[in-house]
C-alpha cells in the first residue's frame, strides 16, 4: 500500500484535490489529513486580522473623481470602525460575535473530519425512530428526522458543538456520497460557505446546514424531504 505523500496530504486538506480512495482504507493517512486540517484551523485562529482603518478609506476619497465610488463605503466604514485604527486579533474576538453570523469553515472542517472518521456517528441507525429519540436530552431542541426516501438513506447521528452551542449532526448517504446535515438553534447562521456544495435553511426556530460533495439539486431535494416530513 502506497501512503500519501506530504504534498498529497496538504493538497487534500487545502481543498486542492477532492480526496483519495486511499483515505478510506488507511487510518494513518486519514489521521495525517486530520492533523493538517487541525493545523490550518489553528493558524486561522492565531493569525492576525486587521480591519481597514477609517483613515485609509478617507485617503482613498475623491481627490480624483475616479474614487467617487469609495464615498458610500467610507460612510459605512466610519460607522463600523468609529475612527482610528482598530486592530483585532481573531482569537480574541468573543464567540458568536457579528450578529449571529459565525464562520462557516468550522462546519466545513467538521464535515471533512467526520467523513474521514471511522466512527463518525454515535448512534448508528437507518431508523429515524431510533435516531430521533437518541437526541432527546442531548441537544436542547427536538431534532426533526423525517422518513427519508431513496436515494437518501440515514446513516446515523451525533452531537456536535459549534461556537459553544450543542447541535445535532445527521449523516445521510446518497449512493457512495455522504451528506452532513448540521442542525442548530436559529440564533446562528454560517457565513458564506466555500469549497463544498451547501444548502442552508431555517425552519421552526432551527438552522439547517447541509454540506456534501453532491450536486446542489440533491441538497435541495434533501431540504424538501426535511420540510415535508415533519
Amino acid at each position, binding site marked *: 500500500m502506497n501512503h500519501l505523500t*506530504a*504534498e498529497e*496530504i*496538504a*493538497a487534500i486538506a*487545502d*481543498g*486542492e484535490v477532492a480526496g483519495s480512495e486511499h483515505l478510506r482504507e488507511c487510518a494513518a493517512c486519514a*489521521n*495525517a489529513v*486530520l*492533523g*493538517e486540517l*487541525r*493545523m*490550518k484551523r*489553528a*493558524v*486561522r*485562529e*492565531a*493569525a*492576525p*486580522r*486587521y*480591519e*481597514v*482603518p477609517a*483613515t*485609509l*478609506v478617507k*485617503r*482613498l476619497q475623491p481627490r480624483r473623481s*475616479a474614487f467617487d*465610488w*469609495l464615498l458610500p*463605503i467610507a460612510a459605512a466604514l466610519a460607522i463600523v470602525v468609529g475612527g482610528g*485604527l482598530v*486592530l483585532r*486579533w481573531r*482569537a480574541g474576538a468573543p464567540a458568536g460575535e457579528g450578529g449571529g453570523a459565525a464562520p462557516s*469553515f468550522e462546519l466545513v472542517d467538521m464535515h471533512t473530519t467526520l467523513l474521514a472518521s471511522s466512527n463518525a456517528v454515535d448512534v448508528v441507525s437507518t431508523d429515524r425512530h431510533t435516531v430521533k429519540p437518541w437526541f432527546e436530552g442531548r441537544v436542547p431542541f427536538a431534532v426533526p428526522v423525517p422518513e427519508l426516501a431513496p436515494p437518501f438513506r440515514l446513516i446515523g447521528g451525533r452531537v456536535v458543538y459549534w461556537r459553544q452551542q450543542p447541535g445535532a449532526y445527521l449523516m445521510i448517504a446518497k449512493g457512495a456520497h455522504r451528506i452532513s446535515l448540521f442542525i442548530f438553534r436559529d440564533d446562528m447562521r454560517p457565513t458564506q460557505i*466555500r*469549497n463544498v456544495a451547501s444548502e442552508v435553511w431555517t425552519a421552526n426556530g432551527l438552522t439547517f446546514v447541509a454540506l456534501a460533495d453532491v450536486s446542489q439539486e440533491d441538497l435541495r431535494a434533501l431540504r424538501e424531504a426535511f420540510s415535508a416530513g415533519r
Partner: protein
Amino acid sequence: MTFEELALPLLSPLYTYARWLTSDAQEAEDLVQETFLKGLRGFASFAPGTNFRAWMYRILRNTFLTSRSGLRMQLSIDEDPGRFEDLSVDSTPESELLARHDVERLRAAIQDLPLPFREVLLLVDVEEMSYRDVAEALSIPVGTVTSRLLRARKKLREAIR
C-alpha cells in the same frame, strides 16, 4: 465589470495582506493606497477573464518590494530541495489539540516565519486562496507554493511541540 466593482471587495483582504507584509500600520495604508492607484491606472491593461484578485495582490507585493522596507527585507531564502527533509507528518492529531497558551505560541511562531513562508501560509489558510492563485499573486511556480507551505507548517509544528 469596472475597476471599482472588482476592487471594492478586495479592500479589506488587501489591507490585511499589507499588514502581514509590513507589520506597520502607516506603511500598510500607503501600500494599499498606492496599489489602488496603480490598479486603476493599469486597469486598461488588465485582461478580462484573468484573475483580478491575484493581479491586485501582485501589484501590492511588487509595490512593497520596491519600497524602502521591502528592499531591506531579506528575501533570499534557501530553496534547496535537500533542505526539505523529513516532511512526513509524524505527529498524531491528538498531539495537535491546541490549548490556549499554544495559540499564543503559534501566533509567535507565525510572526517568526520568514516572510516568503508566512505569506504563503496565510494566503492559503486564512484567505483560502488556491495554490494557483497564490502562485500567480507572488509570481512563483505552484511547486514553490507547495514547498513553502509544507515547510511553514513543519516549522509551526516544531514550535508548538
